[in-house]
């Protein structure tokens, strides 16, 4: 997918939010969008998701299945969790949302109305509605905002699954939670420009060692599995 000389402003008399942006996101790529509040991160994400139309320029090769998680899920709707997700699945032309209801821990809230959910649970519904179409492009606007610890840990796994299936993921973040996505490429939005930077892995140095702690009984098996997967083990300490 490519943004080709894309510019955007909300009205004829307003300033350009984004100006002459040309960026690519490849299959299997994760992009983290950084920038101060109001820099245009959400605007960029909404253009990539197909919500906003560029004022100038073109967006090429957007995948057919797109999931968008808005920064704030619109919970002021008269539907239950399962009713809403079933309706969104029908809109996407997707199958049953039940697997995502279970996986995101929404099962106890199936019959609860959206307006009665806590912010974190509502955000999980927002995540689920984006995932039910098995997106080839997943656009996450501050996805960790309001989520509980279990769900926060789940997001990198979901991102990894989409990438493994050849999909692309673009994430905005202003809290530093995207450290959970160490392989991501970084785009910085500033002054209506988007600057792609080297992959985080390259920026931080591919040789920087990681410290991984596992339960004592699982140690030998974990070491063997990591070695089998091609990782270099520098040190093992009980």
């Amino acid at each position, binding site marked *: 997918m490519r943004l080709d000389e894309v510019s955007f402003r909300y009205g004829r008399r307003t300033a350009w939010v984004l100006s002459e942006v040309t960026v690519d996101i490849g299959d299997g790529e994760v992009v983290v969008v950084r920038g101060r509040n109001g820099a245009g991160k959400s605007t960029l994400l909404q253009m990539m998701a*197909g919500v*906003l139309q560029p004022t100038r320029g073109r967006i090429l090769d957007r995948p057919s299945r797109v999931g968008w998680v808005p920064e704030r899920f*619109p919970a*002021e*709707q*008269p*539907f239950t969790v399962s009713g809403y997700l079933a309706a969104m699945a029908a*809109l996407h*032309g997707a199958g049953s949302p039940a697997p995502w209801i279970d996986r995101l821990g929404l099962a106890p809230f199936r019959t609860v109305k959206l307006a009665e959910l806590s912010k974190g649970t509502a955000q999980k519904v927002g995540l689920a509605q984006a995932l039910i179409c098995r997106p080839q492009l997943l656009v996450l606007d501050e996805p960790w905002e309001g989520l509980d610890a279990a769900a926060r840990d789940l997001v990198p796994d979901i991102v990894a699954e989409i990438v493994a299936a050849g999909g692309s993921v673009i994430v905005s973040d202003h809290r530093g939670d995207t450290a959970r996505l160490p392989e991501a490429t970084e785009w910085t939005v500033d002054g209506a420009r988007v600057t792609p930077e080297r992959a985080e892995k390259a920026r931080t140095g591919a040789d920087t060692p990681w410290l991984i702690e596992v339960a004592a009984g699982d140690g030998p098996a974990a070491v063997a599995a990591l070695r089998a997967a091609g990782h270099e083990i520098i040190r093992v300490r009980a």
Partner: protein
Amino acid sequence: MSGARLAPLVTMRVAGFLRTGRFIPPLLAALVLLSILYGGGQADAAEAYGVSALLMFPVLAWQTKLLLDAEPDVQRRLAVVALRSRRREAVAGLLAASVIAVPAVIIALGLPWVVNGVKHAHAGTGLLLGLWAHAIVLPPALAVGAWSSRVIATTAGRATAVLVGGAVLGLVLGLSGSPVPWLAPPLMGAARALANGIGAGALGGFTGWALVWSALVLAGYGWLRRTRA
């Protein structure tokens, strides 16, 4: 497949409109207006239906606006992403507004028979002409309602001005002495023709006029929706 997905969005929007109780104010307004219309004794069915259609014009426009505004803006954008098209999302909104207009029109057509407000002579012809009169009111009402929806009008004040202005001008510009009757949908003209006896040619002419007027106004709505999600 994508065309088929309009139906779930139409269903979702109608459900949202009904469950939030937004249908109640326009329903009450319709009942009040129709009660006033039929409270003064019996009239010829075709003539009465012509006036009924005029009264239903602002009600149907208001109902359309309420339906299009029922869901949060972000949910409308989620629908755009799901359907991968702002145009299909906008069409689904207008289809949903058409669906909720059906019971309103049925009430408008049925109420005079319940309250004995129309003469029973030529009832079948009167009913068919009444159906036609309300049918040609619906597209212009959808158009005015769409222009007053939040995504276009953006503020409550502007939305009220568009809705009230559109409804009033739609009637005033159609008065018999109007210098520019073609600027309005043919609602007043159709009502006058129904009162005086309408021919097949006039039926076709008014229908075409209503459809062309609505198509032009809805084209403007569609053009604005290209950039407004």
